[in-house]
């Protein structure tokens, strides 16, 4: 969620967020306002994942939207993933699927694993560990990052005494 919000903060175009209507959590635009201007956000409420994918494909292909975020519950099969990938290429749009753990699609360019980290004593900490676990065109890596609310900017944090990603985070 933090990852998606931080990605949304890049650029200035419209964002389409597709989620299924049955979800009990709601997006809170006041909270998202820490990351980006909520007026940039459009929100499509769909009934089934098929609809979600159809809407996502349409939006990705069109190119009028900067970023399409899809919240998925079921794993994508090869055909669906490939179609989304082709649509994103056709429209030069970024698509971001928020997936449950271990349900990634083979078609994805990159896959990230993001988890919040316990803070280091500063209260407004938004420390997160972003691990790039799949990358079709580069190397993998792990970064500890912190979102700076005031500057609306991402800071990469190196914990003292360790290189980023060298040691597992204390749980």
């Amino acid at each position: 969620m933090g990852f998606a919000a931080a990605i949304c903060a890049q650029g200035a175009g419209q964002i389409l967020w597709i989620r299924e209507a049955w979800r009990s959590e709601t997006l809170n635009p006041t909270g998202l306002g820490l990351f980006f201007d909520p007026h940039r956000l459009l929100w499509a409420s769909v009934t089934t994942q098929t609809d979600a994918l159809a809407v996502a494909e349409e939006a990705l292909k069109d190119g009028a939207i900067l970023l399409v975020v899809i919240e998925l519950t079921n794993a994508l099969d090869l055909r669906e993933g490939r179609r989304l990938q082709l649509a994103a290429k056709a429209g030069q749009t970024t698509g971001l699927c928020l997936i449950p753990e271990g349900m990634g699609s083979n078609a994805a360019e990159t896959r990230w694993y993001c988890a919040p980290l316990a803070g280091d004593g500063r209260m407004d900490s938004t420390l997160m560990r972003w691990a790039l676990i799949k990358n079709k065109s580069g190397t993998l890596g792990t970064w500890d990052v912190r979102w700076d609310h005031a500057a609306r900017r991402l800071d990469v944090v190196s914990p003292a005494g360790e290189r980023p990603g060298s040691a597992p985070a204390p749980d």
Partner: protein
Amino acid sequence: MWFPRLASDRVLRLRPIEAPFALTLRRNNTERIHCLNARAEEMGLHRGMPFADARAFCPDLHSAPAHPARDARFLAMLRRWATRYCPWVGFEAEDGLVLDITGSAHLFGGETAMLGDMHARLTRAGLTVRLGLGATRGAAWAFAHFGGTAVHAGADRDALGRLPVAALRLEAETVTALERLGLRTIADLAAAPRAPVTRRFGPGVLMRLDQALGALPEQITPETEPPHYGVRLTLPEPIGLVGDVMAGAGRLVERLCARLKENAAGARVLCLTLRRVDQASQQVELRLASAMRDPARILPLFERGVGAADAGFGIDQMRLEATVIEPLAPEQLGAVPSRKGAGGDRLEDLITRIGTRIGLENVRRFLPADSHIPERGFLVAPAAWSRPEGAWTLLRPRPPILFRPEPIAGTGPRPPGQFRWRRMSFETAMATGPERIAPEWWLDDEGWRTGVRDYWHVQTRQGRRLWLFHTPQAPGWFVQGEFA
């Protein structure tokens, strides 16, 4: 033009009956005769008679319920038809039309020929009509209603003077009172001294007299014709391919958009009806994210709907109608920054396309609302009917995800050191707060019946940052949101 049997003629046109016929209307809790045909009138029936009495007089009376609204529509249709004689056509009460034929009578070969043409056409259509022609609107009314013949064209002041005073469009009591005074005809009334008449009957009587004689002007108000946004295309041979149908739709859209442009309007909802050879028809409805009238933008949006339509044995007629219209002023290109914000037209087209799949209301945007209650701090509005307006103010950090409060175990005013939430156990590493939010007493919200809430931003050793609150008035701890 006076149609004395408009309602029954309308019904009998659809279903001719060679028998006494009457339309009944329920008034004052009684079925009464609303309108009847000539055969029924010969049997001694009259308007306003209770229907039960009429049945007793005339056992073989056919009847049907009256529909005044349909009669009014029928009259409106006749009014449109009557504009073939002159452009200036208005309604006269519920069963008449008034035409100002000044300057158009010679097109039909003179006044008499014109009246003859009107009478012949209306009679052929099965309508009973009484026509009256006069120098004034009042005189024409008098000749139509009291002229004695079906077509009354000869109109001078003497002829008008011989008519009874009832021909002046007066109320029944006034007419009776005038007749008791011996003023039986219009000429009598015109010759009578004016002051006593006015003193006795008010100004209405003499106003009607002056209107009939032409001393007072009286206008005819023609109805304004609302522009009609429907176009159709009839094909000599049925078509079935999507490409052909889209080509046909392209022609229709162009014609419709030209009409919309003339009237500075834009279509919001379009309905394409495809009539098939077997008389079935299919409708493709297109709801647009904004009012538009650009054929090049509208046409591609039809592709999905047309592709899904079943052509059957072929489509031989297409009809495109803009069912919902919004005013859309012409917009200057380029010079002024677009009011639509980033994306502009392309974004609206995309919303429309998405809307055809999931419903236009389901593409939404957030608008700021003026409330401290976290779940009411924003409004959700359909993107197609709202603009991104208003400023977002953020006084304190709020979680990007909100859910319904989920209870956790905990006591006391400070966040619990350890707690379980969603089958996970957490240890509190740090907690900031409290931030007290009081319920809005002017709105009764079930979730806020527990009174004020003290919100805490809790950072757990496990990493997740939660938004907890404590309700001091009904002790309990809840989780309501998660920070990114």
